[in-house]
C-alpha cells in the first residue's frame, strides 16, 4: 500500500499544526463558534448529540495493521474504547474532547493518517471497491488513482468552499462494489479496443433527499487526462452550483436543472480552455504511486486445498461462513475474507478496541498486514491462503468477529441515527438490532440469500436506504419515530433507487413488516432467484398487498 514520503509527512504535520492553532484560538476566545465551525469541519470535527465527533479518513478504505492498531489505541486513549466504521469507508469516534483533538491528530499523523476533508463543502475522502487489487474480475487496481486523487484534492485552493460536499467513487472492475452511480463523480475503468485504459466519467448521482442516478459525462477519457477533466467538472460546479438552498446545492441538482447535454457541453467547453500543462507531472506521479501498489509476493498454490475442503465438510458453521464471508481472489490458492461487523443484535459498524487489535494482529499474520473497510461497514482481509482459513475463522470466532452473514439479511447497514447524531429524526440502530435478531437463524439467512437492508435515521440518507434492496428511513411524526420502507434499491452496476411501499410503521412494527416482505419474496421466487431479481420481475404490488392487506 501507499507510504508517505517526506513531503506527505510534512504536509500532514503542518496541517495538524494549523488546526492546533485554530483550536487554541477557539478555546482562548479569539474565534467565535461561527468562525470556528467551518474550520473544525474541514478537519472532520463535528458537534453531535452528546459530544464532539471526529471522523478520520481511511483513504479508499485501505488500512495497515499498524494503522488499525493506532486507531484502537486512540479509541482507548481519547474515546470510550470503541470506534464506528462508516458507509464511506471512514472511522468515527463519538466522544473525543476538543482540547485533545490536536494531540489525537498528531497520533494519527504518526501512522500516516489524517482527518482532512472528512467534512465540509469540499472533496471528501475518495472511496473505492473494498476488493481493489485482489478481486477476480478487476480490469485494473483503482487504488493508485485514488491516492492521486487524495493528494490532488487535499487542501485544494479552488475547491474547498464548494456549494456543498463532494464525493468521488472509483471502480476498476465491471462488478461495481463502489456504488459509483450514486456519487457526485463516479469513475469506471474501461479498456478500449486498442488495449488503452480510460475512465468513464459519471456525474450527478447522489442520495439524500433527492436521490439520483448519475449521467455519463464522458464515455472514455484517456487515463492521462483525468485530473484536468475533473478540474473542469469541479469548476463548472463551483461557479454554477446552487448556493441559495442547501438542499439543492449538490451537483446532481445542477446536472438535473441544466440537463445532461447542457452540463456536458459546459464541462467540455471549460476543459477545452484548460489545456493540460501538467499531464507529464501527473503521469510521473501516478507511476510513482503505482509502484507502492505492486501486488505482494504470492506463494504458488494449488487451486484447491484439501484440508480446507475437509474442514468445510466437517464443520457446518465454518462452511456457512465460507459461503457468505469468503470471496474469490485473483490468485490461485488465496481468498478474500470479509469480516462482519454485524453480530446478531449488535451495532452495525462498531468495533471495540480489543477487536481492532485482534484484526490488526490477524491481518499481520494472515494477510500481508493489510485491512480494508467496506461501504457496508464491514472489514476485509484481502490476501488469505485457503489453507489458513480454518485457523483464521477460529480466531475471528473467539473475538466475536465471525458472524457468517456478509451479503445476507443480517448484514444490515445503519447510520448512527438519533442515538448519536444531531441531525437524525429517528433511531436507526435499534431497528437494525430488532431485524437482525428476528433473522438470527443462520440457516434461514442463508436460505433467504443475497439481500441488503439499509437504514437511515433521517432524510440525509447516510445509511444509504435509497439503494438498499430493502430500505428503511426513520422519520419523526409529532415526536414519535416512524419508519418508511422502500424496495428495489441497488448500488451496483445496475443501480436503482428504491420505491416507497406505502405508509410508514412504528418502530416495533418494522421487524414484522420486514418478515412479511421476506416471506412474500420466498413465496414468489423462482429457484435461486435473488430478492432483487424477484422484485424487478414482479414489481412492488405483491409486497404492498401483503404488507397492507389488513390495513
Amino acid at each position, binding site marked *: 500500500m501507499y507510504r508517505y514520503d517526506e513531503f506527505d509527512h510534512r504536509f500532514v504535520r503542518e496541517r495538524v499544526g494549523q488546526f492546533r492553532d485554530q483550536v487554541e484560538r477557539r478555546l482562548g476566545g479569539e474565534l467565535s463558534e461561527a468562525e470556528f465551525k467551518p474550520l473544525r469541519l474541514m478537519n472532520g470535527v463535528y458537534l453531535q448529540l452528546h459530544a464532539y465527533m471526529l471522523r478520520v479518513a481511511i483513504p479508499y478504505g485501505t488500512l495497515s495493521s499498524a494503522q488499525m492498531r493506532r486507531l484502537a489505541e486512540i479509541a482507548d486513549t481519547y474515546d470510550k474504547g470503541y470506534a464506528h466504521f462508516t458507509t464511506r469507508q471512514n472511522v468515527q469516534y463519538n466522544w473525543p474532547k476538543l482540547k485533545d483533538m490536536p494531540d489525537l491528530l498528531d497520533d494519527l499523523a504518526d501512522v500516516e493518517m489524517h482527518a482532512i476533508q472528512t467534512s465540509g463543502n469540499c472533496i471528501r475522502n475518495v472511496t473505492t471497491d473494498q476488493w481493489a487489487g485482489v478481486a477476480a474480475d478487476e480490469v485494473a487496481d483503482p487504488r493508485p488513482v485514488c491516492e492521486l486523487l487524495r493528494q490532488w484534492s487535499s*487542501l*485544494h485552493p479552488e475547491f474547498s468552499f464548494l456549494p456543498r460536499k463532494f464525493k468521488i467513487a472509483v471502480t476498476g472492475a465491471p462488478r461495481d462494489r463502489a456504488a459509483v452511480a450514486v456519487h457526485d463523480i463516479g469513475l469506471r475503468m474501461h479498456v478500449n479496443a486498442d488495449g488503452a485504459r480510460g475512465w468513464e466519467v459519471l456525474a450527478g448521482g447522489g442520495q439524500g433527499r433527492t436521490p439520483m442516478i448519475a449521467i455519463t459525462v464522458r464515455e472514455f477519457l484517456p487515463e492521462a487526462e483525468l485530473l484536468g477533466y475533473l478540474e473542469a467538472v469541479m469548476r463548472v460546479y463551483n461557479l454554477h452550483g446552487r448556493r441559495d438552498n442547501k438542499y439543492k446545492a449538490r451537483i446532481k441538482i445542477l446536472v438535473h436543472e441544466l440537463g445532461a447535454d447542457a452540463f456536458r457541453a459546459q464541462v467540455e467547453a471549460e476543459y477545452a480552455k484548460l489545456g493540460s500543462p501538467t499531464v507529464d507531472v501527473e503521469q510521473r506521479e501516478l507511476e510513482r504511486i503505482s509502484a507502492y501498489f505492486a501486488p505482494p509476493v504470492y506463494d504458488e498454490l494449488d487451486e484447491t486445498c484439501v484440508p480446507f475442503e475437509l474442514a468445510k465438510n466437517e464443520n457446518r458453521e465454518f462452511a456457512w461462513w465460507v459461503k457468505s464471508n469468503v470471496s474469490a481472489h485473483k490468485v490461485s490458492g488465496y481468498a478474500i475474507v470479509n469480516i462482519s461487523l454485524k453480530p446478531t443484535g449488535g451495532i452495525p459498524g462498531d468495533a471495540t478496541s480489543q477487536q481492532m487489535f485482534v484484526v490488526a494482529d490477524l491481518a499481520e499474520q494472515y494477510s500481508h498486514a493489510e485491512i480494508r473497510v467496506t461501504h457496508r461497514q464491514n472489514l476485509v482481509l484481502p490476501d488469505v491462503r485457503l489453507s489458513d482459513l480454518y485457523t483464521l475463522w477460529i480466531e475471528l470466532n473467539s473475538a466475536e468477529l465471525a458472524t457468517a452473514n456478509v451479503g445476507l439479511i443480517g448484514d444490515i447497514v445503519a447510520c448512527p441515527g438519533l442515538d448519536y447524531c444531531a441531525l437524525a429524526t429517528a433511531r436507526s440502530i435499534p431497528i437494525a438490532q430488532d431485524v437482525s435478531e428476528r433473522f438470527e437463524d443462520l440457516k434461514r439467512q442463508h436460505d433467504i440469500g443475497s439481500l441488503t437492508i439499509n437504514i437511515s435515521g433521517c432524510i440525509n440518507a447516510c445509511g444509504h436506504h435509497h439503494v438498499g434492496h430493502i430500505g428503511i428511513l426513520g422519520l419523526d411524526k409529532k415526536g414519535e419515530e416512524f419508519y418508511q420502507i422502500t424496495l428495489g434499491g441497488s448500488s451496483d452496476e445496475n443501480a436503482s433507487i428504491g420505491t416507497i411501499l406505502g405508509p410508514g410503521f412504528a418502530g416495533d412494527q418494522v421487524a414484522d413488516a420486514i418478515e412479511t416482505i421476506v416471506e412474500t419474496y420466498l413465496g414468489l421466487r423462482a429457484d435461486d432467484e435473488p430478492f432483487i431479481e424477484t422484485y424487478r420481475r414482479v414489481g412492488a404490488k405483491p409486497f404492498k398487498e401483503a404488507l397492507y392487506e389488513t390495513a
Partner: protein
Amino acid sequence: MRLLKNGEFFEDTWLTLDNEEAVPQGADILVSAERLQAEFGTLMLHNGRLGVVVANDRAVDDIADYLEVIDTVVLEFPSFTDGRAYSQARKLRGSLKFRGGLRATGNVLPDQLAFMRQCGFDTFEVNGRFGLDVWQRAVTAMTLTYQGGYVPDRGFAPADVWSARAGNADDTLRSDFEEIWTA
C-alpha cells in the same frame, strides 16, 4: 477597510463608484462590470487607474475584452463559505491571462488567505481585527501544496510537491518568510 498587499497594510485610495456617480478626475476608480461594458468608450480615457468589480454570479468572460486596460479586478466573498470567486480568479489568471491586480473583498479571513493567494489574488480588503502577524502566520502555515498549477508567482510560495518529487523544485521551497513576503 484597509488593504493587505505584499505583507503590508495600505490605506485604500480607490474610489468605488455607483453606476450613476460622476467620475472624478485623476482618481483611481472601481466600477461595476455593467458600467464598464456600457461606458467603456469614456472610461478608457479616464486619467486615473481603472478597476472593475465583478459580482460572483457573473461570468468573468464578460470582461475579457477590457482586461488589457484594466488595472485591477475586484472579486467578492459575500461569506466565508461562498467560494465562487476562487474559480473566477483562477479563470482570470488562467485562460484569460490577466496580469493586473486582483483584489478580494467581503468576508476575508486569515484562514482563507493562503487559498486566495494560490488562486491568484494579490490584494485583500481586510478589517482591523487581525494584526499583520496573524495574516503572516496564516500564509506560511502550509509550506507545501499538491496543486502544482496553484503556486503564487510573487511573495511567499508553498512548494509544489509533485514537482519537488521530480527534483524540479529547488528554488520553489522558499521558507524564509520575511525576505520573500516583504520583497
